[in-house]
């Protein structure tokens, strides 16, 4: 028997009663009745209470029924799709540490797989003369290049300069202990060119362009713009993906060269004005330390990183589902996945080029 106004003020009082009734019913004949004839009005808390009761009843295999419902209340009932509300809750995800790492890494691998498929399709569309979108796609490459390349010059230069300074300082602090001040130049040149330049540039590109690519394509998907392109006979991969991948594959190594040059210049300023090495000494040391292989390796690495960032961004963007929330997820996902994969690929490069050789 429930009261005339069954609302959030009173529901809690009845919880123990219902539990009691259900417990008895589950021991006994498995049936229970709740008398609602006195109930004139309900609120959502009252409704939630009844649904909870039904859920408990189901768990305990009790057939719970409501009796004596007034028409006004039964109308309220008819608005609620009980089946939808009674789905069993999904098991909470626990798992040990290894599983959690797996949960993190597996989607990354899937993204890599999806990215690879997209890249293959992009290459196909580029080769295939009948693929629509060539004409419209013309010129987009330069737009993308401007956006991803020219637009990033400022921030890449600034961070390059600061990192060059920092690195020179750190190196100097260590080296002067051994009286090896003049190796500051070598340290900076090699670490920047081989590792930090391509890596930092790629991360900056992922943050700037990877996210914007995913957001832009994702928005186009939910606005049906991608469908519209396809409908007009324009292959979205050719029109959207190819220019972006091409632009980043070209812009990233250029930006990496810029980054490294400015970083070395930052180190040089420190070396000349603080360590007192002299311009010529520093420049000579740098050019001696650097080998053509380092520079070539850095260029190749950056090209791969740029391609990676663009492909991951495109594939996440084009697969957006579920409206604006999906776009947000894809944007974050693009940056996180790109950076993760950049590091993984970098490790592979080091293994192949340095350890393997």
């Amino acid at each position, binding site marked *: 028997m429930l009261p005339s106004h069954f609302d959030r003020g009173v529901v809690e009082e009845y919880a123990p009663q219902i539990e009691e009734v259900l417990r008895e019913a589950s021991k006994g004949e498995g049936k229970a009745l709740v008398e609602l004839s006195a109930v004139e009005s309900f609120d959502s808390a009252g409704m939630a209470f009844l649904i909870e009761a039904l859920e408990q009843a189901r768990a305990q295999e009790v057939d719970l029924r409501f009796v004596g419902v007034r028409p006004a209340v039964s109308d309220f009932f008819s608005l609620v799709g009980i089946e939808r509300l009674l789905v069993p809750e999904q098991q909470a995800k626990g798992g040990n540490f290894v599983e959690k790492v797996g949960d993190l890494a597996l989607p990354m691998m899937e993204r890599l797989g999806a990215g690879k498929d997209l890249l293959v399709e992009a290459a*196909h569309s580029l080769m295939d003369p009948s693929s629509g979108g060539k004409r419209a796609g013309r010129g987009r490459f330069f737009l993308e290049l401007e956006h991803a390349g020219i637009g990033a010059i400022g921030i890449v230069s600034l961070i390059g300069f600061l990192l060059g300074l920092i690195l020179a300082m750190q190196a100097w602090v260590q080296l002067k202990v051994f009286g090896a001040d003049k190796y500051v130049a070598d340290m900076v040149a090699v670490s920047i060119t081989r590792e930090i330049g391509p890596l930092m540039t790629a991360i900056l590109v992922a943050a700037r362009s990877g996210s914007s690519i995913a957001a832009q394509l994702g928005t186009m998907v939910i*606005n049906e713009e991608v469908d519209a392109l396809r409908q007009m006979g324009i292959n979205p991969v050719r029109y959207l993906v190819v220019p972006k991948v091409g632009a980043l594959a070209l812009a990233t190594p250029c930006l990496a060269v810029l980054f490294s040059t400015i970083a070395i210049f930052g180190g040089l300023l420190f070396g000349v004005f603080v360590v007192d090495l002299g311009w010529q000494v520093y420049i000579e040391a740098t050019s001696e330390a650097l080998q053509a292989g380092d520079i070539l390796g850095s260029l190749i690495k950056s090209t791969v990183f740029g391609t990676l960032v663009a492909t991951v961004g495109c594939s996440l963007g084009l697969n957006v589902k579920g409206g604006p929330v999906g776009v947000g997820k894809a944007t974050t996902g693009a940056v996180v996945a790109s950076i993760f994969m950049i590091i993984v690929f970098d490790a592979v490069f080091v293994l192949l080029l340095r350890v393997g050789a």
Partner: protein
Amino acid sequence: MRIFKRKPRIPKELLERKSRTEDLIRGIAIETNFDGRTVLKGVDLAVTKGEVFVILGPSGCGKTTLLRHLSGMLPPTLGIVQLFGRDLYTLKGKELAELRGRMGFSFQGGALLNSMSVLENVALPLRESTDLPWEKIERIARLKLDMVGLLHAAHLSPSSLSGGMKKRAAISRAIALDPELIFFDEPSAGLDPITAVEVDNLILKLNKVFGITMVVVTHDIPSAFLIADRMIMLHEGRVLARGTPDEIREMKDSKVQDFIHRALPAEEQRSGGLARFLKT
């Protein structure tokens, strides 16, 4: 070039039902599953040249999905779609491109590309599918914009258009290539009644003046009865009724009548509800 990742499953007996007549579009036993959920089930339809064919149904019943199947954007899980007498989902790149050139599509939200102006949007299909010089293309695009009364907005960005203007711009893009057939997804949804009537009139005008066949998806009942030559009524993924507006109005079926008068059948409302747990 890979166009569709998958092809619809086609049971043998369906092949015998393929159309050899002059139907512009024929859908046979179309069925769609999204992640195990059935959205469309056994939908059959035939659209004749020159008519305004309306697909009517409540929100979420699968209208857009059906339109995507018919226009070659999404292969159904099962069934056959014939367009201009060709089996749509067996076509390869070139043939498909040729078919696409003969139809236009006006999307539910307009789907104008935000990275370019309204004029460039209308010019895009022309630039892609013809070898005309830009001056000609621009002239045609302006002509098409004028037909929908949007010439004054040619150089605006789509994001600065109102809902009704977006719809008209989308229609203008859909007619850019002088198609024989246009698909409309909810042309009057989200518009005020007066603008909605304007869009309806525009559809009728294009149909009467240029003889363009129209396939219109809508949940707007007055608009559907105003523009349709023939219509089908979808309900929970199945065809509930088909015929001319007059025929449908005369139908005794209670679901049809309830739908026309914008109410859900009462017993149906009950069956899914908490009301099932009432002891009677």
